[in-house]
């Protein structure tokens, strides 16, 4: 028992964090779960309706569209981010003049407010006067100047492109940290054995980075569930909710159409998905920590 571990000290040190965390993070989840079983509409007293909100979700066309869009954003971002960030990390892992400047430039979109990212990309993806279509038209690819945002089908792909731009540096830095742990002896041995660059990447780097890859995968998945500002700013979920993702659709049901009970059921659905993925993440990092544990 050390001298400062008095009952009073423990209470004073633990109470503020536990109190604020309890009231503004844990309790709200309980509130969300409670409302998800009710028909609360803001007026009068709510009635308990059991699982009705949850069963309704899977017959709701708009919910299914937003689920499909979220899956599409996930699928596109998944491959783009994983491949590009690995490639960028591979380049940044070499020492060259301007390394830290390149790294800083590639990471910079990650520190900008997502709402501003949405504004910026509106001027790039706008089908009429955006940079992308203007360039495509000026070099004669008029038929490739698609309706990137605001159309019927491409918005999730466009969201994935913007999201990739935003988080590329973040995921590349995580890959880079993993690559730095691979001893240069292994590469030297491989080069003595006559391995070429492709063999080195596929037979040494990637297998040794297995856990870093899994970590990036989980971070991409949970990251996609946090996309809201981009949709809000680029299309507002439109036209006719065709570009809605789970979070933006939940926001709409709650704050625009006042179907609080239903919106909270969607929220709980998203929370469960997120917990499932995060849990697998914690499992993986626990395994890794145990292997490299010092303490």
């Amino acid at each position, binding site marked *: 028992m050390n001298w400062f571990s008095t009952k009073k000290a423990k209470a004073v040190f633990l109470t503020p964090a536990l109190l604020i965390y309890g009231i503004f993070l844990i309790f709200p989840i309980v509130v969300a779960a409670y409302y998800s079983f009710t028909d609360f509409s803001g007026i009068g007293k709510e009635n308990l309706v059991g699982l009705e909100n949850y069963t309704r979700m899977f017959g709701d066309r708009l919910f299914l569209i937003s689920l499909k869009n979220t899956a599409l954003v996930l699928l596109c971002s998944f491959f783009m981010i994983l491949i590009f960030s690995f490639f960028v990390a591979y380049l940044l892992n070499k020492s060259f003049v301007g390394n830290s400047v390149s790294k800083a430039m590639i990471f910079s979109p990650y520190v900008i407010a997502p709402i501003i990212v949405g504004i910026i990309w509106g001027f790039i993806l706008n089908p009429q006067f955006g940079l992308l279509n203007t360039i495509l038209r000026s070099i004669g690819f008029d038929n490739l100047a698609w309706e990137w945002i605001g159309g019927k089908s491409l918005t999730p792909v466009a969201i994935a492109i913007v999201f990739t731009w935003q988080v590329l540096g973040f995921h590349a830095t*995580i890959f880079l940290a993993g690559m730095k742990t691979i001893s240069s002896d292994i590469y030297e041995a491989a080069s003595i054995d006559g391995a070429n660059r492709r063999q080195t990447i596929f037979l040494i780097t990637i297998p040794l980075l297995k856990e870093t890859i899994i970590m990036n995968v989980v971070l991409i998945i949970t990251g996609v569930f946090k996309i809201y500002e981009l949709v809000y700013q680029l299309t507002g979920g439109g036209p006719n909710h065709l570009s809605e993702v789970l979070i933006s659709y939940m926001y709409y049901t709650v704050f625009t159409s006042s179907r609080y009970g239903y919106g909270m059921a969607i929220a709980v659905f998203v929370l469960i998905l997120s917990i499932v993925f995060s849990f697998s993440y914690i499992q993986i990092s626990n395994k890794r920590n145990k292997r490299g544990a010092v303490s």
Partner: protein
Amino acid sequence: MNQKKSTLGKIVFYFIIISISVIIVIPFLWMILLSFKTNNEIINSPLSIPELLNPENYKKALNTLDLLQMYGNTLFLVVIAVFFSTAFTFMSSFAIAKMSFKNNAIPNGIYLFLLLGLAVPVYILLFPIYRINLKSGILGSYLGLILPYIAVNISFNTLLFVGFLKDFPSELIEAPIMDGINLIQLCTRVVIPVMKPTFVTVILFNAIYIFNEFPFASTFLNDTNKYTLSLMASMFKGQYSMDYGAIIAASIMIIIPELVFYAFFQKYIISGMTEGAIKG
């Protein structure tokens, strides 16, 4: 022969890495170019070179928006929320990692409980916190925004603080030389100075998150005078009915200070923002 090949390899390598870096910053450069054009030029001839340094859009933006006040509001929220989220989590982490309990399960349980927040997407908290703020009469006030900001940062901070404190040698704080100083002095004079790098990481991570935060601010604030930068930016087209030129100029005035700050502290910011994930 070999030398030639490696020179060529170097050229290719530099070409690729420079191309990637430039492609990433093109959106910023594009915005700067557009900011000097008239609304008409932006829509009808996007690729034309603007009349150099025409500040018209910036003037328009500054006339429509009280940027200085929005900066003030945002920085006020950042300073207060970061101070308390850092201080409170340091205290709880110190208790978890360094104070002795009758049963070890108590600090471990509290630790895991405080980490749960890492798996919670903040958006699902919007409506419940809106209700809590409404019922407790703090809806629309900064207090109703600062408290949730503190709450959602606690998990990340706990992860880093407890991670550091667990490795902190206990002999150092239990030594007899420490007799005569109280707990507060022990923390501020002995423990915190050693933890400076961890504090920098935590503070930068929390500050950037709150500076950029949008969903909470947009849901809990309704008084225009209390708006944050992100919230104001979301209303360029609506409430402020600005044209494209002014929107672009305003966006640039919001991100330039942020990017300059980033340029100065990029080493700490990059490691700070990825450390949580790597240490996870």
